[in-house]
Structure formats: structure tokens, C-alpha cells
């Protein structure tokens, strides 16, 4: 084979031309989005940080866009990640609204002064104990922690107190999602109820028991349903929200009054820099409207928190769940919980 200088050169020029043409074509596809909120009477846009998954809230946000004419640019991520990002960004944040998967992240941000006061019409929509008492953020839906288990395990064997999952019989059979804010909120509840030492013992026990780590709740549910693990710690509604109903999965509710029966909320707040944003107010108003509340009850199986909206089908009423007696504000030490989980080696 002799080196040929002409052929490759022509090819090289050709590839360069192809690349350039591709760029030109793609260049027409759009320019980088300007993160600054648009003022005046231009197209109305809103930047939302969502710690809730796109498959759960995407359709609802699409309804909002259609009805309001506001374009919502959503940054999806884990709730904890976005809370850290908002703390990092401070006043420079491009986000106007934060939609959170749990109360702990909202409480932590509220404590740092990240939120603007809620508009009056939103403030009264949800009543205590499912919302912030100081009007910094509002609860949107309720959810309860459950142990999802594969039905090949007899229901009686699944512990109603999940701290028993550190027992050697569960070695390698349990799945958790340490990066998930709802799991972290459960650990915070355990710290509040039983103390840091007990929470640490639980986490270390799980680790020693070869707990299987998953990136998120949906992955845990799949693993339970396919028998990769026997028990997974998730929120109740993932079963209802799954596109194909899991055939081999059942839910065990926690023993009344224990952290295992924690009722947590999803919620939203307007960031301090967007105090005057009409778009942010409109979105919050929409989220506590009957339309959105019914969507959550029907489509994702969550508990609506606005009075007069029927709860999810086939689930015990929120009042009957007998959650542990703690204030959602008690869950705000998210940093302490993630520190603990880091020390134990789950993060």
C-alpha cells in the first residue's frame, strides 16, 4: 500500500465541508436559550427547577403552558442536587420557581432565605400540617413512605418498621436510593424521632447488609417487580404512576407513628429574585388549582392537599395513615442528613 496524498486530501476537504454544512443546518435549529427572564410584553417565559421527574409532572406543565401561553423552561434533576445548585447560585439563579420532591429541601432553602413570600391566594390553599407555616413555600401533594415488596415474599414477613431490614435475613435483598430526597427525608425523620445514633446505626446496618443502591425510585420498583431485590423503600405512588402496572409488587405501609409511616409532601416556592414575577405566581396558582390537584390524584396517585379534591383511588385516606407526630419543618436539616450518609458511605 503506497501512501497517496491526493485522495485523502480530497476526502479531508470533503469531510470538512460535510462538517461545516452540518453546522450550518444545525445552526438554524436554534440558539442558546437566554437564561434571563424576559421583561415587558415579549413572549412570556418562566424557568423552573424541578426535583420531580419529567414523566410525572411533564404532562401537567404542558397543560399549564397551553392554558397560560407561558413557556416553561424546566431543568429536571434530583431535588437535593437542585437545592444545592440554588444555594450555590444565590441571587444569580436563573430559576423563578422550585418544585421539590420533599419538604426537607424546601425547609432548608427557606431557612437560608431563598424564597419570596407566597402570594395571598396561594398561601391559604393548603392548610397545616402540610405546608410551611411562615408562607415561604406551599405543599402540593402528600405521599407516604412504603416498603414495596415482591409478592413471592409473604406479606407477614415484610417488616412494618423498616429499621428491621438490617437483620441478616435481608442481606442483599433490599433496595434503596440514597440520592433520592424522599429517602433522605425519611432518614431525617428517623434522626428527629430516634436520634442521630439510631439513624447512623440503621444506615450502617443497611450498608453492612449489602443493601443494593439504585439511582431512583422507579429503578427500585423495577428491581422489586423483576425479583432483583425483594424489598425496596419508595414512595407509595410509584406503583400507580408506572406505565405498566407492576404485576408482582405489593405495598406494605409502615407501623403507625414510626418514621416508616412518614407522610411527606411535594411542594413549590417562588425564589426571592422572582418576587415580582407574574409568571411565577400564575404557575403556583395553577399548581394549587383543582385541575392540577385532580391530575396528581388521578395520574400519579398522590394525595391532593387542597380541600374538596378526591384522593387517589384504592388508597387509605390521608388522615388514616397515622403518620409520626412531627412537623414538616423538622425535616429541614437536609445537610446534616447528607453529611451522615456521606460518613456512612452511602453517598
Amino acid at each position, binding site marked *: 500500500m503506497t*501512501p*497517496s*496524498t491526493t485522495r*485523502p*486530501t480530497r*476526502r*479531508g*476537504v470533503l*469531510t*470538512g465541508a*460535510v*462538517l461545516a454544512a*452540518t*453546522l450550518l443546518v*444545525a*445552526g438554524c*435549529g*436554534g440558539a*442558546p*436559550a*437566554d*437564561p434571563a427572564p424576559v421583561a415587558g410584553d415579549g413572549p412570556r417565559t418562566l*424557568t423552573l427547577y424541578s426535583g420531580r421527574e*419529567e*414523566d410525572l409532572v411533564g404532562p401537567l406543565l404542558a397543560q399549564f403552558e397551553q392554558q397560560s401561553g407561558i413557556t416553561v423552561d*424546566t*431543568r*429536571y*434533576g*434530583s431535588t*437535593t*442536587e437542585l*437545592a*444545592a445548585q440554588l444555594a*450555590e*447560585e444565590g441571587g*444569580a439563579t*436563573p430559576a423563578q420557581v422550585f418544585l421539590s420532591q420533599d419538604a426537607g429541601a424546601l425547609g*432548608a432553602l427557606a431557612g437560608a432565605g431563598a424564597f419570596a413570600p407566597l402570594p395571598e391566594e396561594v398561601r391559604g390553599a393548603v392548610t397545616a400540617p402540610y405546608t410551611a407555616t411562615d408562607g415561604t413555600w406551599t405543599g402540593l401533594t402528600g405521599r407516604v413512605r412504603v416498603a414495596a415488596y415482591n409478592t413471592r415474599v409473604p406479606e407477614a414477613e415484610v417488616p412494618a418498621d423498616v429499621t428491621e431490614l438490617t437483620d441478616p435475613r435481608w442481606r442483599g435483598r433490599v433496595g434503596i436510593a*440514597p*440520592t*433520592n430526597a424522599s429517602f433522605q427525608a425519611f432518614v431525617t425523620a428517623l434522626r428527629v424521632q430516634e436520634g442521630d445514633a439510631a439513624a447512623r446505626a440503621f444506615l450502617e446496618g443497611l450498608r453492612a447488609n449489602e443493601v*443494593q*443502591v439504585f439511582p*431512583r425510585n*422507579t*429503578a427500585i420498583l*423495577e*428491581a422489586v417487580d*423483576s*425479583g*432483583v431485590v425483594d424489598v425496596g423503600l419508595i414512595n407509595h405512588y410509584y406503583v400507580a404512576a408506572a*406505565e405498566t402496572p407492576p404485576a408482582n409488587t405489593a405495598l406494605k405501609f409502615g407501623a403507625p407513628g414510626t418514621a416508616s409511616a412518614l407522610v411527606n409532601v411535594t411542594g413549590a416556592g417562588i425564589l426571592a429574585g422572582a418576587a415580582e414575577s407574574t409568571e411565577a405566581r400564575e404557575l403556583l396558582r395553577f399548581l394549587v388549582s383543582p385541575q392540577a390537584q385532580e391530575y396528581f390524584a388521578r395520574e400519579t396517585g398522590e394525595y391532593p392537599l387542597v380541600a374538596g379534591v378526591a384522593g387517589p383511588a384504592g388508597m387509605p385516606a390521608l388522615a388514616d395513615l397515622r403518620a409520626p407526630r412531627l412537623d414538616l419543618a423538622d425535616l429541614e436539616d437536609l*445537610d446534616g442528613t*447528607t453529611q451522615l*450518609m*456521606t*460518613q456512612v*458511605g452511602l*453517598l
Partner: protein
Amino acid sequence: MLLRRSPPRTAPAGPPAPVRRRRRPPRALLGAAVVVAACAALPLVWLVVRVAGADPGRVAALLARERTLTLALNSAVLVAVVGAGSLLLGLATATALVRVRLPRPGLWWVLAALPLAVPSYLLAFAVLAIRPEARGLGPLAVVLVLACTPYVTLPAAAALRAADTGPEDAARTLGLGPVSAFCRVTLPQTLPAALAGTLLAALYTLADFGAPALLRYESFTWAVQAAYEGTVDRTGAAVTALVLAAATLGLVAAERAARRRFTGARAGTAPTAAVPVRLRPAAGAAVVAGLGAVAAVTLVGPPAVLAGRVVAAGGVDADLPRLAVAAGWTLLLSGAAALLAVAMALPVGVLAARYRSRAVAATESVAYLGQGLPGVVVGLALVFLSLVLVPALYQTAAVLVFGYAILFLPKALGATRTAVERVPVEAEEVARTLGRTPWSTWWSVTAPQAAPGVAAGGLLVAVTAMKELPATLMLRPTGIDTLATRLWSQTSLGAFGAAAPAALALLLLACVPAALLVRATAGVPGGER
């Protein structure tokens, strides 16, 4: 060209060493190169500053925990296994490509290179679609070996083609059998190139985030991402990222030291080139079947498995408009990254090819830093950096493209340097004596001859950027999806069928530059280095 990395004193195979001018490099060129090197060093410097500014107690506790050791061991074992596997499979493939007479040889070259376009997380996802309980080292090593082998195959095949077979013939006359003569005499000539390729495979493995996450193997990258997603205080993510960067840079340095000690006999253009042997039909069929099986599993396997899920689910809602927009962004971002990386590589590459001094060597080494910085590290650093230094560009595509350019600058740089070295200095000197200015000489003499090699470097950057995941996840503008992020969100949902359209689109898109790459370089002996 493909995989040429830090400047070896002795090229394993290739053109005669260029005559370098002893003159001082032009100030403008050196200045531009220093600016590029500074950009490449930015993420690492920032991380060091950030960790140094954090609470020392927290940092010490993070470093001292048992988990750091676990992660280090996990990553080390993975790198060793994948490195060894890629080396063996790559050498075997290269030998088949160069020394065996195959039907449609050009096709096999392309097929050997195309896995470059296949994201490792797509392979891992296909494994999960077949066996949902798959996890850990075994399946992950298989996936990564398949994804990384081209990094070894291409330089090894190029070196093998340029290798001098004279010694092998001599060994035959002394009574060695054909196989043992090849293995004992010729194969060692390709080792420097193959080992350089193995280093790239090792670096890819150490930096890979998607496949370890899907197969739940707790590697360093996975831990950085978990800390980023799961903690409120980002010190943990920064410290873990810094440890990972240190490990990766250590790997690069070790390989360089080993290479410096190795001064093998340099083959020039092969005086006696090997003639591919015609195997017995059964053996030939076995070789073709082996090559075909690897190509099929890597390239056809994932889309076929996902398509099977689509059929099983009775069709799937592909959301084509959204897919098209994601494809547009993928093209735009990877194309811009390729152009920026080439633009950044030019001053450093020209400098390294034509001048020799301490300053030049240092500049070039710093520009190669991206090779030792995994995507999670660069992504994390640029999230912090853009917010502080250029708030106006925070969360815009510009920062993401810059991140790609830093990450993949080494690929463009190796290509550019080699391409410029191939242009004879004498041609430039003749032009200069005829009264042309340095610039006009560059445009009329050097650039046209170096263009194909430089363009190939750009193509490689484009392919790699298309499938890049962790930095893309952290830096993409709000509301923007690329094919890789679309695919990733489907994989984390376990939506096997729904992921098929994005997977297919990404493969088709990435295969175009990958195939062009082979065609642009395979015609030149030693061109794929």
C-alpha cells in the same frame, strides 16, 4: 493519527522524524498556545482552589473514610480488567485486519472503528434489557471492553501495517513457524502503539459514568455523580472529583514515564511490507465469524434488543418532533465542539510540531490535561466556574461547548501535531525563499497538506462529544435535550422500548463521522495513529 497522545520521543511507527527549527517560536503563536493551555488547566485549578477553601475538617473526613479506598480499589480493578481485555481483543483484531486476507477488507476496517460511536451506557442498557439482574464487574467489564477495543485496534493495526517484516522472514528461515515468528518478532514492534491505545481505553474506563451507573458498580465517577446529586454541600463532590483527577493524571504520567524508557527500534516506512496471508477456508471463516460477531454484538446488538422491546410492547410513542430537536442540538453542540477544539489545537499543535523548547513542551503537556479529567470533573468545575467568572454565560450552550473542547482537546491536538509534522519543512522553506511571508506560507503550503489530518481530529472530537454524558447533564442549558440526555433519561426509567428511537438516532448520527474518520485516515499507512 487517531490516538496520538502526549509527545513520544520516538514515534512507534510513522514518517521520519521532522526536522525541527532551532529558532525561537513566534511570540503570537506561543501566546495563543499558552492561552489554550491555561483554558485546559482551568477546571483542575478551580477544583484545587475550591477544595483548599473548604472546611479542612470536612475534607479530611471525606478523604479518610473507608469508602475512598473502596472506590479506588473498584476503579483500579475495573481499569486493569478492561485494559487487559481491550489489549488482547484489539491486538487480535488488528492482526486479522492487517495479516489475514479478508473479503471486503475496507468494510472490516470501518466495522472495527465504529464502536467508537457506541456509547457504553447503551451497551449496558441492552445488557439490562436481556438480564435485569445484571450488575457489577463482570457485565461491566464486557461492556467496556467492547466499547474501548477500537482505541487499541486502530493504532495497533496501523503500527502492524508499517512494521518491518524483514526480521520475521529471517526468523522463519531460522526455523520458526509462521505463527510463532509473527508473535515473537513482529507483534512486539506494535506494542508501543498498542499500549498507548490501552492507556486510552483505561482512561475511558476510569472516566466512564453511564455504564457503571446502570450496572451499579461503585466506581469513582459514580461516586462523584452521587455526591453531586445527593448532597447539599458540594465539597464532597469536589473532593471526590479531585481524587479521581489525581488518579487519572497519575495513570497518564506513569504511561509517559514507561514510554520514555521504551526506545524500541523505530520502523520507518516498511522496507518489506507484510502480505496478508490466505488462510485455509475453515480458519478464514472462523476469523471472519469472530470479527463479525464482535461487530454485531456491539453495533447491532443494542438497537436490536431495544427494537425487540418495542415490538413486544406493541409499538411505542416516539415523539419524533422532540427527537428531531434533540438531534439538532446534538449536531450543533458536537459540531461547535469539534471546531473549537480544532481551533484551540492548532497553535499548540503547530508549535509542538515545529519548535522544541522547554516552554513548548510544558505548554503541550498542560494542553493534554483534558485527557486526565473525566467528564464529571470538568462538568462539576465548569458549573462552579461559569457562575463565578461569566455569570452571563451560566447554563448556556457556550459553556457546554467549552467543556467539550477542553475534554477532547487532546484528541484534536494529537491529530493536528501529527498532520503538521508530516508536512516537510523543506516545502515551507522553499516557499519562504521565494519571498512568501510566514502566514502566506502557512496558508498555501502547510495548511492544505495538513488539512485532512486536522479534519480527522475534529471528526473524532465530534463523535466523542455526541455520546458524552456526565458533563452534558451538568452543563446543558435548561430545557435543552441532546440525544444522549434523552437516551439517559429513558435508561434511568428502565423504559427499554421508549429508548429505542433515541438510541437508534444517536447511533446513526455518530456512525457518520466515525465512518468518515476511518475513510479519511485508513488510506495512509500509520494514519490512524
